[in-house]
């Protein structure tokens, strides 16, 4: 038996997101999408998966503005973090840009349409898992549509 392999590795997902393209896994069994990727389909558990590109469009499910950041990220605060429901179904955690974090209210944001913007980057730190992250993490980044 061939060794089981990821159909969409973090490395490839990350490299693509750096170029502002959001990849997902599309299931050959149920037709639904898994994003960010996993070993199996999020919806049905199938391993019959193909890497595909998503539209990058969605709507805001929820958000927070974080004023306390982790070691090495002190300059980032305040950071606007959002959960987006993509139009293809999956939810993805990312950042929202183009709005003053101090003006981020439920009225201004909840349910509002967003689209993928130029990916912000995060340099790796000593806990980030070594060389495959050379160049850093691409952060799913959205702006209001």
């Amino acid at each position, binding site marked *: 038996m061939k060794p089981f392999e990821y159909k969409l590795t973090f490395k490839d997902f990350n490299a693509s997101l750096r170029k502002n393209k959001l990849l997902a896994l599309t299931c050959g069994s149920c037709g639904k999408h898994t994003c960010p990727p996993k070993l199996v389909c999020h919806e049905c558990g199938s391993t019959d998966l193909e890497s595909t590109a998503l539209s990058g469009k969605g709507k805001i499910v929820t958000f*927070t*503005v974080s004023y306390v950041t982790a070691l090495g990220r002190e300059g980032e605060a305040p950071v606007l*973090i959002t959960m987006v429901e993509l139009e293809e179904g999956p939810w993805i955690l990312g950042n929202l840009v183009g709005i003053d974090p101090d003006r981020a209210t439920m009225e201004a944001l909840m349910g509002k349409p967003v689209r993928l913007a130029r990916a912000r980057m995060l340099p790796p730190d000593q806990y980030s898992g070594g060389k495959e992250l050379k160049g850093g993490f691409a952060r799913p980044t959205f702006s209001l549509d």
Partner: protein
Amino acid sequence: MEAILSSNLKSGDIQALFVGNVLGDFSEGQGMVQSFAADEIGAKNIPASRFEGACASGTMAIRDAFMWVASGFYDMVIAGGVDTTSKMGTALGTRTFAMFTDGHYEYPSGLTFPGAFGMLTHQYSAKYNIPLARLKHQMALVSVQSHKYGQHNQLGQLRNEITIEDVLNSAMVTSPLQLYDCCPFSDGAAAVVLASEEMAKKLTDKPVYITGIGQASSGRFSSQKEFLPRLRARELSVKQAYDMAGIGPEEVDLCELHDCFSIASIIAAESLGFAEFGHGGELWEKGDADISGRIPINMSGGLKSKGHPIGATGASQVCDIVRQMRGTVEPQRQVDDVRIGLTDTLGGDGIICNLILKRGW
């Protein structure tokens, strides 16, 4: 040692050790605490195991210890937890706690633990149509009650009374959570001796039985899209525990639940069956969660006031419920006639562990 000595045991009577320890590697530069702990207490060379499930670790250790004793493999073990997270300071503390988010797909966006619960608060407000101002008031009541009782806990960390205004005027941590919506970083340890029923009856005339256990897990935050702001793992875990004990939430006399953030208490109380979904905050508004209410919650002061030494938290919940049953806590926070208690711990957004305790006399 207190657990062993107060059980009239010697260290040599202990057959195995189970310890929850999460961040000893970072806070103390100390790994493999289980082995050193066993040696320290004089239980030389016994099998010793460490459990890591973020903030649920201590309960995981006790649950596992219970299963080994219940299976008959051991009849006398010690289980508990320890952590010293305040030693790391806020920056490293926040970094290490954020390791319990998805390191590849979610941490890069800046997700922290308070951040996850800030997001749940906004989502809860929208989903259940509770205006944020009212929800924040309910959340403040949760913190106020925790301090009201926690101030009397001799083993507590933040032993001051606070007001609703204190909560609503405190610094913003991650919207809409303010400082007094959040538990502190804490140092602490707790342990219990678990013995077979036969052995327990020989050791004490006031044994407490574990009658139900549950544990479940979830994936990354976005992977829980079908259920949020409900935490599915808790609903599965507590059902296991209730079913095993043959009881329902209405039979619980006292609950220690995982109030890492004020909103977390409201969400937890609903999943544990004490309120309808979207109505958890009313338990605090109406006094149902208070000392003489329908279901007293967190009479220890909870994570908010008593403190949250993460690997030890679940074990400290068990210790407090046992003391409540035995009538040995400070009188200002003693609940009358506790027969059945429930503990609840949440590790990250993903691991939930519940225990049901029953008075054995």
